């Protein structure tokens, strides 16, 4: 491990003002959060920031040397673009450090209306090739791309060598669909879209039932998506993490398993590959999660930067289903 390692930026989530303060105090270099409503991809009840709260959040972060990134990373539909444009104008007006954008039309609006505003390209945009990323850089002056979780470290290195902007990569948390920004499973069942309404498995469609033997059935709308036996760990109530009877396979994870991404052991490789920002997923998670994960990764990044081996063994307790994976990052063999 080289001691000359460039210390990457640790980018952490916040769903509420209290979580933001927790993330800053735990050592985040940057915090990403979104406005209340459909403009961000974590539009859940009781979550997110009003304009007043976002303004105070900018002050709190910047006064402590941290950056605030506003996620406006869902896709407006016809007749609703004013909501997204207002969110962009509001974010610019309070001097956020960057806006994370997914929709190509909103990227155009942002770059033309506010040419001095730093723009990051959201993972929701699904730009994974140098050609796609270069298009966004050329047209909208994107300064950073958040890469989809479909690339190996070796591929990230190749992308890095062919693009002019910074790379941000996920290192911990929920691992999404392989074609990020294009999931229609929730839309199919509920009529609400992860990408256009910002809601994956809207809470008002989620129902849990526990029987006398402690078996837990999870439903989204009229569909049962899993039945978790007594003693089994549960996962998020999303269709992609459900178990189904498919053909000759019973209780089969037809899409993905409930498992969390954890790339702690790949941090040196990611940095070597040219990743300048390490992203933790989880704006929907609690302050307890933020405190634990952010402080653990703060220590891990600092330890690696000093040529030491970090101890991050306590993170498993916070993973979905108590399982973790390095996903596609080491190899494409991951399902």
């Amino acid at each position, binding site marked *: 491990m080289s001691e000359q390692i460039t210390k990457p930026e640790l980018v952490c989530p916040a*769903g*509420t*003002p*209290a*979580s933001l303060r927790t993330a800053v105090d735990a050592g985040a270099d940057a915090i990403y959060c979104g406005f209340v409503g459909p403009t961000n991809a974590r539009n*859940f*009840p*009781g*979550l997110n920031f009003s304009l007043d709260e976002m303004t105070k959040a900018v002050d709190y972060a910047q006064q402590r040397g941290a950056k605030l990134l506003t996620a406006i990373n869902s896709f407006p539909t016809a007749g609703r673009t004013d909501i997204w444009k207002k969110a962009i104008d509001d974010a610019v007006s309070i001097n956020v450090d960057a806006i994370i954008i997914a929709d190509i039309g909103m990227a155009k609006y942002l770059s033309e209306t506010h040419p001095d505003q730093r723009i990051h390209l959201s993972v929701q945009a699904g730009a994974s090739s140098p050609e796609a990323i270069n298009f966004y850089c050329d047209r909208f002056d994107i300064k950073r791309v958040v890469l989809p979780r479909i690339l190996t470290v070796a591929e990230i290195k190749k992308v890095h060598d062919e693009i002019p902007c910074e790379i941000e990569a996920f290192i911990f948390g929920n691992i999404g669909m392989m074609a990020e920004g294009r999931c229609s499973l929730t839309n199919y069942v509920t009529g609400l879209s992860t990408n256009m309404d910002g809601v994956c498995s*809207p*809470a*008002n*469609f*989620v*129902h*849990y*039932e*526990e*029987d*006398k033997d*402690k078996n*837990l059935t999870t439903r989204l709308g009229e569909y049962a998506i899993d039945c*978790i036996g007594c*003693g*089994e*760990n*549960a*996962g*998020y*109530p999303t269709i992609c993490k459900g178990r189904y009877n498919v053909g000759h396979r019973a209780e089969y994870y037809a899409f993905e398993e*409930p498992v969390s991404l954890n790339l702690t052991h790949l941090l040196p490789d990611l940095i070597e590959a040219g990743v300048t920002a390490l992203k933790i997923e989880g704006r*929907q*998670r*609690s*302050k*307890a*999660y933020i*405190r*634990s994960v952010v402080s653990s990764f703060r220590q891990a990044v600092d330890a690696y930067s000093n040529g030491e081996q970090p101890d991050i063994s306590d993170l498993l*307790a*916070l*993973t*979905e*289903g*108590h399982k973790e994976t390095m996903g596609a990052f080491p190899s494409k063999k991951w399902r």
Partner: protein
Amino acid sequence: MISQNYTNTSGSNSSPGSQHLSEAHSKSLSRFLPPLPLFALSPLLSHVVNFIAKKHPELFSRLGESTKKTFLINPTNLPFFLILQPDPNNPRLKAYNRGSEIKHDVYISGSFATLLKMIDSQSDSDALFFNREIMVTGDSEAMVALRNALDDMEGTLVDDVASSLGPFSKPVRKFFDIVNKSKRHHE
């Protein structure tokens, strides 16, 4: 609102009346509980919830429409359960003996220490759910809103409860300390 009393209309058997108290847990906590009748506990709970509502008015904006919901909170190792109605104009928290029939929208259960740690953000609620240490049925939207509203609260519930009770704050803090230690012991 779910029209249910002790038998959950969804077919679940997770409502308080149908749950068996864990003998070990129940005894371990009961040792520290004074023999307080519920008619004496209710004014205390009412005082506490009004204190918290005044101190944290922002809770209600995060709750949104869920301020109209009724939450049944079942500390599985205590001899009673709680009903919370977070109406900003008239917030109510009341204790009921097991066996009472109370209509509710949301049902939350877990050991007292686990619920306390979740409310005070010492434990991550998603992780507690993944581990099956807490159980939730009913209106998930209201549950998520309550979780997020409480998580945005500055300070801790223990501090608020203790502060609201003035001269009794010291024994209250001691009681919560014992509860937390009891939880760690059973872990």
